[in-house]
């Protein structure tokens, strides 16, 4: 269950690889051949004494960091991706903010020789993956069923379906949701949050966790800012106050305005 919103059993999820025509689907989750367990099984130590005696109460200092199960898996993904030289980018936003449109445009504009792959998450359908599908780009769709976010295990399974040799960029399009995905490290190198002009100037103040963890915030759909009545200065000020650590790029995937800065950002992060 997602502890943020209590939605669904994060148990079964689908992994659809779109490499082969028609793709093939693996079902994953409890009962599948691969399941990751938390580490550390406790054993109780048997006492062989004849007569029972009271045990002294002791305080054991530990001072160890607690890493949640997902964080452990995320670190594994991170290590794997770094070793393969893949820069993984986690794209987060509310539903309909334009992640897929931006990704489609991005794949059009990446320089030749900058190989990319995509893992896209939705509750249902492979439509996003089909929109992104093209020669030379491995695309995997994760259908979460009811889960409102991607987690590290799903991403690990997606990575398993991709041939990442020579891949510079792995885009992970998260489930559209500004709350829960913020809590789930996927093992990415860069976190990008989309903030479309249609969502109002107060958005960053209303959803601090996701914005506070952003490396880059992309203000999208700038081509319709006027029609949306977007008040740019307060929006940017709010963004700066909640997320002073984040770089900001303003662009329109539709018109192409500002998109060079995004491509340059990707090249810089991927190390070219």
């Amino acid at each position: 269950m997602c502890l943020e919103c209590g939605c669904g059993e994060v148990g079964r999820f689908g992994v659809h690889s779109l490499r082969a025509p028609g793709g093939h689907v693996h079902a994953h989750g409890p009962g599948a051949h691969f399941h990751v367990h938390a580490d550390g099984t406790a054993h109780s130590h048997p006492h062989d004494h004849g007569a029972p005696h009271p045990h002294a109460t002791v305080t054991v200092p530990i001072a160890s960091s607690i890493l949640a199960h997902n964080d452990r898996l995320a670190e594994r993904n991170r290590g794997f991706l770094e070793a393969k030289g893949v820069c993984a980018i986690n794209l987060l936003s509310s539903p309909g903010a334009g992640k897929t449109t931006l990704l489609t445009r991005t794949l059009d504009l990446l320089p030749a020789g900058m190989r990319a792959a995509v893992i896209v998450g939705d509750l249902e359908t492979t439509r996003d993956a089909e929109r992104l599908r093209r020669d030379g780009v491995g695309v995997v769709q994760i259908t979460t069923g009811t889960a409102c976010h991607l987690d590290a295990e799903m991403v690990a399974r997606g990575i398993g379906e991709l041939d990442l040799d020579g891949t510079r960029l792995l885009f992970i399009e998260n489930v559209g949701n500004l709350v829960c995905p913020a809590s789930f490290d996927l093992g990415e190198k860069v976190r990008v949050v989309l903030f479309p002009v249609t969502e109002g100037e107060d958005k960053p103040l209303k959803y601090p966790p996701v914005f506070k963890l952003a490396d880059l915030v992309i203000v999208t759909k700038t081509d319709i800012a006027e029609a949306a009545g977007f008040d740019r200065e307060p929006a940017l000020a709010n963004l700066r106050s909640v997320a002073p650590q984040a770089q900001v790029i303003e662009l329109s995937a539709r018109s192409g305005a500002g998109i060079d800065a995004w491509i340059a950002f990707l090249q810089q992060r991927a190390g070219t």
Partner: protein
Amino acid sequence: MHEASIMQSALDLAIARAGGAHLRNIHRIRLRVGVLSGVAPEALQFAFEALRDGTIAAGARLEIDPGPAACRCRDCGMNFEADDPVVIVCPGCHGMRVRVDSGREMELVELEAS
């Protein structure tokens, strides 16, 4: 934050450490949860009460200490404790270029067992 997963990890660690010290009953578990970690102590308590059943911590008490957010302003050098986790502003110069030195940690501090 995903408190159930975090509490499960903390419990697994406590049980493993108690077992390693040949202790059979955990009476108390003490955690430190930084105020900027995004983890809600009440949710940890709630998860603990559900998860401890059937383990050697079934009768244990959970104590959670808040970890302060120790910050240093990159502009004026002032050291301060952040009170607002959302907007962190230097009380000296009102700048927002702040280095957060603590407050994001989640730690199993100690356990008491016999």
